[in-house]
């Protein structure tokens, strides 16, 4: 058994375990539906989360060591990550040359990063304007750079998003987002006031109300990100070299279509729309990524 086969077997096992975890959400097939099945193989995994999935903090730490201590290592925290009522399904199949994981369906969803923060210290009390704050409190509070919200994330039913592992050992990513795929992107600068309360309501959905799936904040910039047959072809990921010289090679495939940022809105006033069309990448392009 070669490495690719082992990896496919491992991935299959993980998918089965993953499917088992969410099996309570699967709907049993009735006999009539079963009679339409014509002996196809492969695996379909449907995930359906009810309510809100929350991650309090995702932290990446960079442990630099500078002998003069003018520059120290830092950390980046994504706090209060929320994923609302998600439903999607993926097909998993294996052919003679590749294993394919393909997005089959995706329902409209919202997600948010409540605070993007450098060097966050969760042990410190929030700043109270009535009490003199410590340097450490200020550092932790003002290390925040805002919050990010993705609302009404919609992927058109004809979209093609897939991950492949081929027998050459490459990991390939392809995505086609037809017209009808979009999301609202909002960045808020002052998400919370000094008391931790939100101070501003914004109707992200444009549906006339600001209570459901909308965001709050004081200063914000938002846009509707719209895709039009946006196609990223064959981004490959592969490990290269061994030992100290090892690196991850990312080759950049070609791109078609357009991506637009419609109705760019700063604090409730639209400044215009912007976009990119017909992005072409030469095959010689690559990224080599390694640690130091």
């Amino acid at each position, binding site marked *: 058994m*070669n490495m690719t086969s082992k*990896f496919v077997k491992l991935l299959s096992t993980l998918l089965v375990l993953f499917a088992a975890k969410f099996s309570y959400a699967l709907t049993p097939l009735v006999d009539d539906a079963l009679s339409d099945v014509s002996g196809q193989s492969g695996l379909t995994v449907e995930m359906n989360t009810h309510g809100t999935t929350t991650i309090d903090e995702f932290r990446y*730490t*960079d*442990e*630099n*060591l*500078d*002998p003069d201590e*003018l*520059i*120290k*290592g*830092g*950390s*980046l925290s994504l706090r209060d990550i929320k994923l609302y009522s998600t439903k999607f399904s993926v097909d998993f199949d294996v052919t003679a040359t590749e294993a394919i994981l393909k997005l089959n369906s995706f329902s409209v969803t919202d997600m948010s990063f409540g605070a993007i*923060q*450098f*060097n966050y210290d969760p042990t410190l009390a929030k700043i109270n304007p009535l009490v003199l704050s410590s340097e450490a409190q*200020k*550092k932790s509070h*003002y290390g925040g*750079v805002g919050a990010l919200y993705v609302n009404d994330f919609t992927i058109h039913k004809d979209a093609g998003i897939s991950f492949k592992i081929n027998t*050459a*050992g*490459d990991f390939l990513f392809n995505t086609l987002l037809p017209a009808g795929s979009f999301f609202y992107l909002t960045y*808020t*600068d002052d998400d919370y006031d000094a008391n931790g309360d939100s101070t501003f309501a914004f109707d992200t959905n444009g549906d006339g109300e600001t209570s459901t799936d909308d965001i709050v904040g004081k*200063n914000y*910039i938002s846009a509707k990100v719209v895709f039009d047959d946006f196609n990223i072809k064959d981004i490959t990921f*592969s*490990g*290269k070299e*061994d*030992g100290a010289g*090892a690196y991850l090679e990312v080759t*950049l495939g070609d791109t078609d279509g357009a991506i637009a940022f419609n109705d760019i809105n*700063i*604090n409730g*006033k*639209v*400044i*215009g*729309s*912007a976009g990119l*069309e*017909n*992005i*072409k*990448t*030469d*095959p*010689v*392009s*690559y990224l*080599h*990524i*390694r*640690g*130091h």
Partner: protein
Amino acid sequence: MMKNTKSIFILAMSLLVATNSASAMQSIDEDTLRDLTGQSGVDIDINFKGTVGRIYFSTKGKDISNNDVTNTLNFRNFSIDTDGTNHGANSDRAIKVKLDLVEKGLKSGLAAVITNINDLDLKFEQFNVNGDSGSGAIAGEAGSPMHSYGGLSLLNINDHNGETNVNFFARGKSGKEGMQMEIQLPKLLTLNLKYTDYGSDNTNNNTTKDDDFSFSGDLALNNFTVENSIDLITGKNAKGEDVGGLHIGVITQTGDITLSNMKAGSQAGTMGRMVINGYRMTPESYLTIQGK
């Protein structure tokens, strides 16, 4: 795949060995410490050659008959080549980027050190307002008015073995909201600048025609540093009008600029050299972008 799996296995075993051998670790002397620039973080080699067919910014307004109109600024055929001299997966000289999360005095954030800029080419083939908005080849004036301002090329950008520092910081313990962007160019950065105003018979902007007008020169930037604050703000001016928006403040902008070998059109000689020494923008100058 084999190399991937081997790398992961070696990494995992190394971590286990390192953990189990922690008690046997020896202290590092000071001379060795001075050579350390970071214990973690990411190094990226970038080789990119590609084109964006159209980048646009559009606003909505009214014409003289009070009809709704959309006016668009188009940047057409913007191309990037990180090594304009060579072309090939093995011959191109990649630009090197070192990324670290750092804490630097009162600020903390993402620090990038960029080196090995040998022959970076950036070209904007055409700027126009309400002209051809296609994302393919640029048509001639004879077909339809281009409303063109011409094209701009920045070729052979070279850092002369220096390093460019780009930092995105939260303003941290300084007690100020927003982000701070710092760009410190290498001691010497040179490039060839060329502006072309296309003539009426132009059918292919890649080929200089007799009726094209061009202005070119060799630009050198010495010790150029830019530090800006970026913040979303809300407020009112003395008249009670809303003045909030995207606020870009100047903290520092200094450097020396030299434009030599200036040449206009097809003249035989050059127009000499222009030097701006000690350019310094007043701190607290700012630019605010807001909708109407």
